[in-house]
């Protein structure tokens, strides 16, 4: 066996070995690390650096223009003592609980319905119909819904009026008891395209033999769903639970556009609090402290889900 053929660890490291290592390193550099470098640099500049800055600046008083002044834990103490902060936490907890349930259950239900259509062509058509709305930017959707809710020219008010119910038309965005639920209804009928596609993919990954044997044994639809389909898409559900919760906890645009957190604080959420503290009040340090709290909240919930939601089976294609 020549030196070239023997493993490097079992013999002396020669000059030709060094040349070989250098050559391999150069190749890996050009083919792997080198090509990753620009993306990595941009990732650090635009993702990690701002996040690290936010962590550091959350311990300072900063108006966004002048130099920040370190103030220790004062921002966090201010938050803990601020009743508005706790109101926002309560609101987002309610919002997340209701909306997560809707945005998981409804797309799953629709995915199952589409999955069991006999015609592949119809499956495709329905999938397209439900997914096409994803091209509409969220802000456009929110503005359309603000039009729906408008007390002067809104569609919902007009609908109530046509039905002879103008006397009982709710003050959708102006009643503190229902404003939060009005915001939650944005997105009705809650068939989230992304969630639908993920669940559909999960259902498609179920081996045909499993479904066939269920059919042969005469398993009913309900039992099939709860005992076969649901456990086998638990992996997808775990992913979507995490993503949906992250998205809801970070929610800023919807309450900002529709209610600005009002009436009172009935639609205040931590994301909105963070935004208003920073950009309305010029308290960037305090806003960043809120963002840190949101981050810890999201991290905790994600850890809990990873720890306690274990899919019965992990499927591979």
């Amino acid at each position: 066996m020549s030196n070239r053929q023997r493993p490097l660890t079992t013999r002396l490291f020669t000059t030709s070995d060094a040349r070989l290592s250098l050559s391999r390193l150069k190749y890996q550099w050009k083919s792997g690390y080198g090509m990753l470098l620009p993306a990595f640099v941009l990732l650090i500049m635009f993702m990690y650096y701002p996040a690290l800055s936010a962590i550091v600046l959350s311990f300072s008083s900063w108006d966004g223009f002048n130099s920040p002044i370190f103030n220790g834990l004062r921002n966090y103490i201010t938050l803990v003592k601020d009743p508005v902060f706790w109101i926002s936490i309560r609101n987002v907890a309610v919002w997340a609980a209701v909306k997560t349930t809707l945005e998981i259950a409804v797309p799953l239900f629709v995915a199952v319905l589409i999955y069991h259509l006999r015609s592949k062509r119809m499956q495709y058509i329905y999938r397209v119909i439900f997914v096409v709305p994803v091209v509409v930017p969220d802000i456009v959707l929110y503005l359309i819904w603000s039009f729906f809710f408008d007390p002067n020219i809104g569609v919902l008010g007009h609908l109530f009026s046509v039905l002879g119910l103008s006397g009982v038309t709710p003050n959708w965005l102006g009643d503190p008891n229902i404003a939060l639920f009005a915001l939650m209804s944005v997105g009705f009928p809650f068939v989230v395209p992304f969630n639908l596609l993920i669940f559909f993919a999960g259902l498609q990954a179920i081996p045909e033999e499993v479904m066939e044997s269920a059919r042969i044994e005469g398993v009913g639809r309900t039992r099939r769903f709860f005992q076969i389909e649901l456990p086998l898409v638990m992996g997808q559900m775990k992913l979507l639970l995490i993503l949906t919760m992250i998205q809801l906890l970070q929610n800023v645009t919807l309450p900002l556009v529709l209610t600005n957190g009002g009436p009172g604080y009935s639609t205040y959420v931590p994301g909105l609090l963070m935004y208003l503290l920073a950009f309305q009040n010029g308290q960037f340090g305090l806003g960043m402290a809120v963002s840190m709290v949101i981050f810890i909240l999201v991290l905790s919930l994600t850890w809990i889900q990873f720890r306690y939601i274990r899919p019965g089976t992990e499927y591979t294609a």
Partner: protein
Amino acid sequence: MHVKLQNRRLTQGLLISAGIMLLAAASAWAGGSTESATTSGKSFSGTIQTYAESYSPNQVFAPNQIRPTELAKLAKEYSTLHPGVKVDFVQNLASGSDYMTWLRTKSAGGELPDIVWVQWQKADTSVPHGVLTNLAPHLAAADPYVPGKSWGETLNKQIVAETRAPDGATYVINGDYVGTATYYNKEMFRKAGITTPPTTWSEFISACQKLKSAGFTPFAWDLAATRTGIDRLSWLTRLFYTNFFMGDWKKLEFTGTDNVNLKDDAIAVHKGMYGKDNPRWMALWPILKDFSQYWQKDFTGSDSNGNGPKLAFIAGKVAMYFDGSWAARQIQSAKPDFQWGTFSNPYPTSTLTKYATSYDSSASIGGPSSSFQYAIPTQKADNSMSPAKLTATVDWLMYITTAAHDEAIVNQLGEYVPTVDGTEPIPSLMHLGQLISKPLYATFGGYYLNESERSAFFRTFQSYVLGQLTLAQFGDQATQLMNQTSDTLAQQNHWDFAKY
């Protein structure tokens, strides 16, 4: 051969990536300066970027909106007079956009235009220290376009004094004045048996009662927690508190300036003049809650991007609403199918409450708070600003604030009144023109010490009107908010309240 080809492709890929990164870095660096502004001592040659608000030729226009052209015309004339200097207009933000957020983020990046629009009150409360240039030294300079006078002498001295910051600086140059009024549906008034528009608040409430009995919604008010809604409450606090405290006006001018400024308000809060322990201050809130029974049903709901009350009025759903002098043309162009008119905002009298004085405070809602309020950023907020450019930008401001030019700019829109000495408003706004040289007696009564306090105060008031808080609870919370903010302002600005 295959390996060689692969290596060449990989190297090419690396070079392309590096090139893209270099280009990005270069454009980010170059984006900060688009001209060759020369350094101190040399005359400026380049472009002056101006954010001109309503007078800008560069904005998205509504179908019937009058297009302002005067400022653009003056910019061309100015360039002819000063070869090498060009004036460009930054596009106005879209309607409903948060201008202060734009200003704040642009200043953080050193990217503000060379002239920005700023409400003079916000130069003290919302704009961080160090963003705006103190123009007071320039007011003393000779005005090259008005021989024999300094720049300050050509402007409205009353307004210059009133819009000065507590630290004595002048950050904002004013050129127009806005009034507000109550717009009313003449036909509804006729049907409700109201023959003359009300003058006092008591007469106004009586008119509301008659309208309600006749089956009409008397008034449209915006109490949504939006920027407009939050701002509108300050109209009512000014209307009432200016009247209520007129007997103690001199006492309110703690700092001895020609107006009750932010620092005076903070001191008044600190001393308890504004707060739950002063029954004069507390008297306003039950009056406003009583007024709310005459408002349109969904007054806390969506406000149609700040236009809710106006839309409700134009649609004939309500009999009255408050708005600024700018609304007259907008209502006209909407061609409502009823006759409408305006009357001065009704002010409180002793018939309403023992705390009212005889002062007619209807003009206190308006003032030099309109579109012609221009400021110049510092070099830190506008990286392109240099001493030479500052001189040129001030010169451009001097050019547009001569009497002839200010009158032409402001009167073209016909919504506001020009304020530079020697100007005349359009005939229909003559009554407003009479106010500009009168002292602007106006106090917010502690509402609007800063953005944070104003928002929180507003939401507390919402809760009170909606019945979620009692008057005592509202008083407690509002006073606590004002006190905390007053203390914060004192700390931030190094104010010593013990001196007053």
